[in-house]
C-alpha cells in the first residue's frame, strides 16, 4: 500500500518528461530533414531580376511589393522606401540591419547573410523605384593618398558634425529613450557603410547632403576615423574611450577600494597568542 503509490508518483513525472523530450527530438529531426531549405538567391518562377526576387522574398512583407510600405490597422509595419535610394539599401543590408528579425526599438548591426552581388542587385532595384542617393563608387570613400593636413581637416569636420552622437573617436554614444548611436570602429563598419550612412541618414541619424559635406569632406572624415583608430593607445587600457565615466569608476573602485583594503589591514589586530 505504502510502497507502490510512492514509487509511481516518483517515477511518472520523469517518464513523462523523457517521453516528451524524445518526441521533440524525433519531430525536430524529421522537420530538419524534411523542411524545405530557404536560399536567399533561389530563383522564383517568374521573369524578374535577381534584385526584385530577393526584395519580394525578404523585404516586401514589411515594405510592400513596390516599396510603398505596409500599414496594418493604422500601425506602420514598414516605411515607404521608394525614395530611400540604393545607398540606403546597401547600408541597411550590408550592416545586417535589414531584413529585421522583428519589430524592435532600434535596428542593430548583425551578421549580413547576403553576398555583395545580391545586395547590389536589391539596391539597384529599390534605387530604380524612386529618387535617392545612389551607390557610391570606390573612389568616393577611398581614403588613400590624403595628406596629413586633409586628415586633420576631416577631424575638424568629424568633431563638428558627428562627434555629438558618435563620440570624438567614433566610439558611439547614448541617445534618448534607450536608443544609441552605434560605434563606427571595431565592429566591422566599412568605409562604404559610413559614406552611405552620411548620405542617407539611417533610422534617427540626420542626413548630410553633398551641399554641406562634399565627397572630399566625407573622405577626409573617414580617413580621420581610420587614423585615430589605427594609432596605438600608448597609455594602456582605453576603458572604452568614453571619458570620465569609466575612468572615474576605475579610480573609485580600484584606487579607493585598494586604499580601504590597506586601511583595514593596517588597523587589524593580527595573530594573537590566544
Amino acid at each position: 500500500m505504502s510502497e507502490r503509490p510512492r514509487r509511481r508518483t516518483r517515477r511518472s513525472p520523469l517518464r513523462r518528461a523523457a517521453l516528451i523530450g524524445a518526441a521533440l527530438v524525433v519531430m525536430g529531426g524529421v522537420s530538419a530533414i524534411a523542411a524545405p531549405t530557404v536560399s536567399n538567391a533561389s530563383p522564383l518562377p517568374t521573369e524578374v531580376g535577381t534584385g526584385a526576387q530577393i526584395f519580394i522574398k525578404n523585404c516586401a512583407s514589411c515594405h510592400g511589393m513596390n516599396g510603398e510600405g505596409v500599414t496594418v490597422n493604422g500601425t506602420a509595419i514598414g516605411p515607404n522606401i521608394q525614395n530611400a535610394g540604393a545607398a540606403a539599401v546597401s547600408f541597411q543590408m550590408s550592416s545586417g540591419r535589414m531584413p529585421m528579425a522583428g519589430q524592435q526599438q532600434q535596428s542593430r548591426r548583425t551578421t549580413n547573410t547576403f553576398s555583395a552581388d545580391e545586395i547590389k542587385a536589391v539596391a539597384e532595384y529599390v534605387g530604380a523605384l524612386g529618387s535617392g542617393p545612389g551607390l557610391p563608387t570606390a573612389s568616393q570613400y577611398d581614403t588613400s593618398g590624403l595628406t596629413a593636413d586633409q586628415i586633420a581637416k576631416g577631424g575638424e569636420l568629424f568633431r563638428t558634425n558627428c562627434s555629438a552622437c558618435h563620440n570624438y573617436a567614433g566610439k558611439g554614444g547614448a541617445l534618448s529613450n534607450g536608443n544609441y548611436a552605434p560605434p563606427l570602429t571595431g565592429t566591422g563598419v566599412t568605409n562604404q557603410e559610413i559614406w552611405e550612412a552620411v548620405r542617407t541618414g539611417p533610422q534617427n541619424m540626420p542626413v548630410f547632403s553633398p551641399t554641406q559635406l562634399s565627397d572630399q569632406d566625407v573622405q577626409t572624415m573617414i580617413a580621420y576615423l581610420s587614423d585615430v583608430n589605427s594609432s596605438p593607445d600608448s597609455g594602456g587600457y582605453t576603458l572604452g574611450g568614453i571619458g570620465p565615466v569609466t575612468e572615474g569608476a576605475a579610480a573609485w573602485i580600484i584606487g579607493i577600494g585598494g586604499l580601504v583594503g590597506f586601511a583595514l589591514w593596517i588597523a587589524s589586530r593580527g595573530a594573537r597568542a590566544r
Partner: protein
Amino acid sequence: MSSEVEVTRSHPVPDPGIPEHVERWVDVDPAASRRAERQIAACFGAVPLLALGFIVVYFFVPKTWAIQFAGLHAQAQNFWLGLLGGVAILLVGIGAVQWARLIMGDHEISEERHPAGSTAEDREQALDEVHEGITQSDLPRRKLISTTLKIALPSLALPALVTLLDMGPWPGPGMRAATIETTIWAEGVHLVTDVTYRRIKAVDMVVGELVNAAPENIQDLNNDPAAKAAATAKAAIIIVRMDPNTIKIPQSRKDWQVDGILCYSKICTHVGCPISLWEHQTHHLLCPCHQSTFDLGNSGVVVFGPAARSLPQLPITTDSEGYLVARSGFTVPVGPSYFERDSTHDYQNGDN
C-alpha cells in the same frame, strides 16, 4: 585612567578602560618573530633592486617597444617604469606597516583628554583686565575720539570696494544688451556651413538633414581668435529640414522657416552646452550634458530635462538666388539663463 571615572556632563559614557592585553603570536613564538623580521627585511631589501631596475629600464628599453597583453597595448618603457617604481614605493609602505604591527612595542594606551574651557577664575581675571583697559583708555568720556575712530576704520574699505568694482565693465542693462543679449546675426546675414563656410541653398537640403552652421560674417573675425570664439559661443546654429506636414508651425512663426527648413540656436538654454544631437524621426534634440531634450518640430519646446526655456529659433528666409539668409537676429537672448533675463518673450508650448 580607570573605569571609576564618574559619569558627568563632560563624560557622558563611563570609561570602559583598556581591554585585556593579549600577546601577539610573534611575542611568544621566537620563530614567528624571526620570520616577521625576515619578511620586513625582504620588503626593504627588494627596494634598491627595483630602483636599479627602474634605471636600467629608463636607459635600455627602447621607446618603440610595446606590450600586448589581454587587450592591453602599452609602451613597454612606461609600463616597466611604472611597475618597478610603483612596487618599490609599495614595498616600503608594506614593510613599514608590518614593522609597526609585528615588531614595534605592543601595549595599549589611552589618550588623556580634558575639558577645553578655562577655569572660572581665569575667565574672571581676563574680564577684569579688559575692563581696566577700557577705563584707562578714557574712551567712555572722550566721545569725539570714539566717534571719529568708528568712521575712520570703515572708510578704509572704500578704496578696496571701488577698485574691486572697477575690475570689469559694470553689467548693467546697457552692457547686457550689447553683449550676452545680442549675437552677430542680423537681417541679410547668410547661413553657412561650420568649418567650411559654404552658403546653403534651400533646395539642396533634404528632409531629415541637419547642418551645423554659422553666420557668414563670423569670418570677419578670423584675425581675432578670442573675439571669434566669443561670437561663435552665442551665434552657433543648427539648421534642420523636416516634412512641414509632420511638425507644428505656429502662425507667428510661419515666415521664420522655408518649407520645413528651421534654424535654431545650438546653445542649450540650461547651462549653454552646444547641442547637435538630433533624432530626425522624433525631431528631438538631446543635450548630452544633462539630457535636456527639445522638440524642434514644435518651436523648440522642452520635452525633457532640466532646461527651463525653449530653444531660441532664428527667423530665416531665402535670398534672390535661393540661399538661406537670416531675416533678423535672434528675438530672445540665446544661451543659459541669468538672473536679470527677461523671459516673457520666450516661446511657450501652445503659443501662436
